[in-house]
């Protein structure tokens, strides 16, 4: 299948900076996949995300969204509509005082018919499990709920790709679980392509593919089970290793023989149980 997003050797330097934030990044994203992008601070992962829906335009190379070049002005709305973006702070993404009015913002901008907006708003809120809160005021919701409203606000555009730039960075563990489960369901059940930029290894573990960035380039790219066992390399890049993988690697170093593919706590516990039985 053709990639829904194609990033070709892009470079980008922020106007007030000397060092390039992106320095030859190349990436193809297959439709319907769940890609996690990892990297330490300043590795360029947020900058890459902002190139995917033409918020930033590359200095060199090009970004194609469904074949549309992001530098072509006439494609701007089509690209933004196809690639929805969710940011870190849910408070700064919500426009209206009522949940359902906020979700309606994007389709209203697109000039969608009122009855169709209603259908999309209800659908989007149901997909993230926030339908019962549709008449609430956003500032009275929890962080996880607010972030799910923000996701619904993007879903109402009916995008094919959802880019989430550290959506859980400001949330407590319960909120993080809520948001990541909702995002995973969107990918698995609705076939929406998800690109998740994150700091949390346990979130990346759930992806189909993990991309690791360092100094504006993509340095590792593969299935989670291939990437995470390379603990030394990840640590050298300033990243942690999922707790389960860390434990398995240490036990293996101490003489056990456990499968390094067990990335989640559940899989890890099962593997240890099996080895001890």
């Amino acid at each position, binding site marked *: 299948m053709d990639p829904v997003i194609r990033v070709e050797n892009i470079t980008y330097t922020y106007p007030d900076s000397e060092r390039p934030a992106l320095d030859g990044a190349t990436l193809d994203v297959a439709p319907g996949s769940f890609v996690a992008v990892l990297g330490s601070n300043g590795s360029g992962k947020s900058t890459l995300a902002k190139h995917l*829906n033409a*918020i930033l335009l590359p200095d060199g190379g090009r970004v194609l969204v469904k074949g549309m070049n992001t530098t072509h002005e006439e494609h701007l*709305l089509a690209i*933004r*509509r196809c690639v*929805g*973006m969710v*940011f870190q*702070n849910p*408070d*700064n*993404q*919500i*426009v*209206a*005082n*009522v949940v*359902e*009015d906020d979700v*309606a*913002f*994007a*389709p*209203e*901008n*697109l*000039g*969608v*018919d*009122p009855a169709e*907006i*209603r259908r999309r*708003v209800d659908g989007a809120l149901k997909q993230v499990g926030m339908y019962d809160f549709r008449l609430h*005021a*956003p*500032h009275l919701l929890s962080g996880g709920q607010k972030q799910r409203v*923000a996701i619904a*606000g*993007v879903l109402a*555009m009916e995008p094919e790709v959802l880019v989430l730039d550290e959506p859980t960075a400001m949330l407590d563990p319960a909120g993080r679980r809520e948001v990541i489960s909702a995002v995973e369901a969107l990918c698995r059940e609705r076939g929406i392509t998800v690109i998740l930029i994150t700091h949390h290894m346990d979130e990346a573990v759930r992806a189909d593919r993990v991309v690791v960035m360092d100094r504006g380039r993509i340095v590792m790219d593969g299935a989670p089970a291939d990437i995470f066992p390379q603990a030394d390399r990840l640590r050298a890049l300033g990243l942690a290793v999922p707790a389960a993988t860390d434990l398995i690697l240490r036990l293996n170093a101490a003489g056990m023989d456990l499968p390094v593919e067990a990335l989640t706590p559940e899989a890890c516990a099962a593997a240890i149980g099996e080895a001890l039985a």
Partner: protein
Amino acid sequence: MLKDITLGQYFPGDTPVHRLDPRTKLLLTVVYIVALFMVNTWGGYALCIAALGAVMAVSHIRPRALLKGLRPLVFIIVFTAVLNLFFTAGDDVLFRWRFIKITYTGLERAVSMVLRVMLLVSGTFLLTYTTSPLAITDGLERLLSPLKKLRVPVYELSLMMCIALRFIPLLIEETDRIMSAQKARGADLETGTLPERAKALLPLLIPLFVSSFRRADELALAMECRCYNGGEGRTRMKQLRMAGRDAVAFALGGLLVAGILLLRRLGI
């Protein structure tokens, strides 16, 4: 503590008054205010009070709530009363002690001015009590939409209002947080002379401003990502529709004006 501030004092409810189209309520409030200034008889005031009472009864707004709203205006009300009471010229002297002179005309005028101010403010309170700030913004936008032809950015103005309302609780929360942070580091915000206290506010305002700008920046980005490109070509999910009850409300409003004009004519 700052969280206790409520803005736009809206009492949610599901009465016929709450369900009226916001445009109807806005227009009728204007009609009511104009009518109030046409009143020059006691009968007229009685009619206005009766109308206000009827709306309160239908919308389940208790008199206590209205009085609470009037409390900050006590000074203005007393000032109006005193001014009219003591400084109205006239020969029908009611009471005289040294240089103080109260005339019958003065007394009459003081009472009527106080009534007028209170009725005026109560009327507008009823509007905000029964209409959510969002509905008021929406109603205003649509009432002013003919101005779009004169290139007045009506939609943008209403969006600005809507966003301002949305961010008020956030900014209050943030102020609270910064205040705690500054207090934790020994800032004294509550004692001292007025200039000292004003100076102490500076370390509060600067972080608040900085973070507001950052918020605005992020919000603009998020709006762009959601395909915002101005008011043109936008549709609305919620369509305002006038219903039968709006016609009834307008008819009652007309009746009020007619009644006031009649009483004015008759001099009752």
